């Protein structure tokens, strides 16, 4: 078997340069065949997802909007160690640490906490390395289907703690769920 005739995919077609007959050169038969192929598509299911109304189902490992977690008692887990910022390949994360005061024990789990925690959404590539680096299980990339909204102002893309920290109610609900189990 010569190398020209081998077809690994089984779909190889010989190209020939033979002259077309009169009927072939009228193209009519070929065109009618083509018309049948296209008309079939008129009745197939449309693949479009009407975006704002319908949202595409996402993969189980989808990495969406970040969330700074709270523990079951509603305290922030983050201790501002900076490992997430260090691991971030896009250098999107910045933070400022502060020491917890005695009266803030119900707010922060560790003795040190992040008073400012910002992720620049224009830089973030949603790789999830921050999630892997975190020793306190404080930052997660959620499956949230809400995308970063468009804006004219670059400042708006820097998400602070007001947008990132998990809502208190969700943390309490989580705690109740765990206790119930």
């Amino acid at each position, binding site marked *: 078997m010569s190398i020209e005739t081998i077809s690994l995919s089984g779909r190889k077609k010989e190209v020939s340069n033979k002259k077309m007959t*009169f009927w072939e*050169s*009228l*193209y*009519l038969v070929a*065109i009618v065949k*083509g*018309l049948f*192929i*296209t*008309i079939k*598509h*008129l009745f*197939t*299911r*449309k*693949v*479009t997802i*009407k975006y704002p109304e319908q949202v595409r189902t996402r993969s189980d490992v989808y990495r969406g909007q970040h969330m700074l977690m709270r523990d079951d008692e509603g305290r922030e887990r983050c201790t501002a160690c900076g490992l997430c910022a260090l691991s971030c390949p896009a250098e999107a994360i910045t933070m400022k640490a502060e020491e917890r005061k005695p009266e803030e024990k119900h707010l922060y789990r560790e003795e040190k906490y992040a008073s400012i925690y910002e992720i620049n959404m224009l830089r973030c590539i949603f790789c999830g390395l921050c999630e892997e680096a975190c020793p306190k299980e404080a930052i997660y990339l959620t499956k949230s289907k809400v995308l970063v909204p468009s804006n004219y102002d670059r400042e708006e893309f820097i998400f602070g703690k007001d947008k990132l920290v998990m809502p208190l109610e969700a943390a309490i609900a989580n705690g109740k769920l765990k206790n119930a189990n």
Partner: protein
Amino acid sequence: MDSAIILEKGIFIVIIFAITMLMAMYSTLAERKVAAWLQDRIGPNRAGKGGLLQPLADGLKLFSKEEFLPDTPNKFLFVVGPAISMSVALMTSAVIPWGDKLHLFGRDIILQATDIDVALLYVFGVLSVGVYGIMIGGWASNNKFSLMSAMRAASQMISYEVAMGLAIIALIMMTGTLSLREISAQQSGMNWNIFYQPVGFVIFLICSFAETNRTPFDLAECEAELIGGYHTEYSSMRMGFYLFAEYASMFISSTILAVLYLGAYNYPGMSWAVENWGVNIANVIGIFVLFAKICFFIFFFMWVRWTIPRFRYDQLMRLGWQMLIPLAIANIVVTGIVILLFDN
């Protein structure tokens, strides 16, 4: 001639004009919708319900665009080009018989703006003037791509008009008249010309594609090679006129195809309907039947557009001169022999 006739014709012409414009408008939407459906998409669906207001939005957008005039010595011709295209596209509808007749207010209203006895020649004459719109526009643009496009359009139209005319000659030999009204009347019931002239029909259909500059013969405006073809330099509503004229002439070509070959307003059982339901109802159904046929052809134009790629220029010319014209002549000869043998 009494004043009632003038009023009657006037109203009729306004109605035809409105319908042609409306059909052309909604053809633009239909084109986008059909294109989307054939490609497994949905198409424009935001403006109005299911995208029904899209043509209005498009028109509004075109009107609000800047009207750009290139630095050309032929400013007058530049403006005249789209106007010719548009008016020619609208002129043809004057001789189309949209139905047989209606009986209203105690008088018979013939559903045709004017019944001239050389209607078919008129149609051909007007259609071939259509190329001047493109030629003048392309020439006055002072742009080599536009000029090339205009040249292509002209040579394409001339080549395909020959085959088209020959296809029609076979039809005229059969019908023995040039009046579109008589041709439609002859096709009563299922006596449609397509069954007697299938080859002529196919040739005429192919040439219609070339005459309206539709894919696969849209060499005049092939985006890949000539940017936008003859309307490269046009903007705003002048450009809109060119685009609109294409759809209007597509509507007219579909109408002519339906009238000449697909039995015009005739449908099986029309004479029965006239006897039992009266002239008016039977003819109103007839008008809808004609529009159904027209819509089918418009859909066909689009269907073909999204099926086959554009011909190369030499393929276009070879198809026209070496395939269609010999075929059309053979068709004439065969028709002549058949008429000679069986009609006596």
